[in-house]
């Protein structure tokens, strides 16, 4: 039996017929081809699958697609403004906040949730906020530096960096 859902993903209205057991992350990656959202653990631990639902960071492997009915979903693909990177994306680049990049989409979506609520977080607050996001290769030092830098940029008027090739 399938359910019909209507939701808005990265600003675009979408409709899908999904089995009730279909996870939000599957609907995003497999039905909508938004493969920027990653699946790391598939057991609610790693945060690689983090997206925003109605402005709140959630683990899309721990939410059914049917639960997103009527919601506003934002994924990493919806963060940049055309070719202009979001300050978090630019800061992860500048501060070397990634190596393999597997955890990065989730890390950035969680950081975006934090910065929406706290424009000037301390390092401790940043570390507490990314508690549910695991990075297995960069180490957290540069990730924290990147989030701090993005916060600074946004506070100083949100100067963003144009993507260069």
């Amino acid at each position: 039996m399938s359910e019909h859902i209507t939701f808005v993903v990265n600003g675009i209205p979408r409709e899908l017929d999904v089995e009730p057991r279909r996870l939000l992350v599957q609907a995003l990656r497999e039905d909508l081809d938004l493969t920027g959202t990653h699946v790391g653990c598939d057991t609610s631990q790693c945060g690689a699958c983090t997206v925003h639902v109605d402005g709140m960071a959630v683990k899309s492997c721990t939410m059914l697609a049917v639960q997103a009915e009527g919601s506003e979903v934002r994924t990493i693909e919806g963060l940049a403004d055309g070719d202009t990177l979001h300050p978090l994306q630019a800061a992860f680049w500048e501060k070397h906040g990634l190596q393999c990049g597997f955890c990065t989409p989730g890390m950035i979506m969680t950081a975006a949730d934090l910065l929406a609520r706290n424009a000037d977080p301390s390092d401790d607050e940043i570390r507490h906020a990314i508690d549910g996001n695991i990075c297995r290769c960069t180490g957290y030092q540069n990730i924290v530096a990147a989030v701090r830098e993005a916060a600074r940029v946004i506070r100083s008027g949100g100067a963003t960096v144009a993507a260069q090739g």
Partner: protein
Amino acid sequence: MIPAAFDYQRSATLDDALKAIADGGGTVKLLAGGQSLLPLLKLRLGSADRLVDIGRLGELKGVRRLPDGRLAIGAMTTYSELAASSARHYGVVADALPTIGDVQVRNRGTVGGAVAHADPASDLAACFLALDAEIVARSVRGERTIPVDGFFTGPFSTALATDELITEVRLPGPRDDAGSAYASLEQPASGYAMVGAAVVVFVAGDGSIEGANVALTGVGPHPYRARAVEAALAGSDRSAASLAAAAAHATDGIDVVGDIHAGREYRTAMAAVYTRRAIEAALARLG
């Protein structure tokens, strides 16, 4: 991981949801934030013929002050919403919330789900026990109020009947003579409490301890009130030695759990340590 197939029903009203679980005879499960239920279904440790999604029931959301001063927390209030509500003025709740899961879990996980799921290491369960909360449960048969002490009956088991839904949790009104705190030792990877101690102390005009409510989680088969600690604290002075002596009773009469993260002996020792720390922190809040 993909759960076994189930039917899905999104409740438009509370009555819809009550009818669905009344007709379901236990094969129908309520879906709140899904932060416990979905991992269980995905790992196929649990199953359901039908999920009844109560996520859209606005009537179960939010925190309100009752005319008599008590605080009523709607079952579908998320941890994040609770942290932003007036419930944060209870020290024990303010201490515990940031230790629960992570931002993503707190954005989805609900108060009703936490209580109904009855994880033996639930942080909020210990807070509600120490606060002497009441749980309001409704079914097609009517409504009843269940004191939280006695609500948890075993690992993942409660006094709730299969056709009952938690609508709200009520906390007593704040008191000037009360201070509260939560202290926990977390398993570093999962973040679940290996020992969590929730304490509310009541202090007399002369500064001595009049009484206390002490609850532990992560230690026994279910979160419990540590009556022996409470008895030792009643009428006690506030010296470090007296507080430590009272806290030493934290596991009296409890079949303490031992696992790969913390053996029985270590957990027993830590239960006393974290109980003492929570008592000290609760007293410190009173100045």
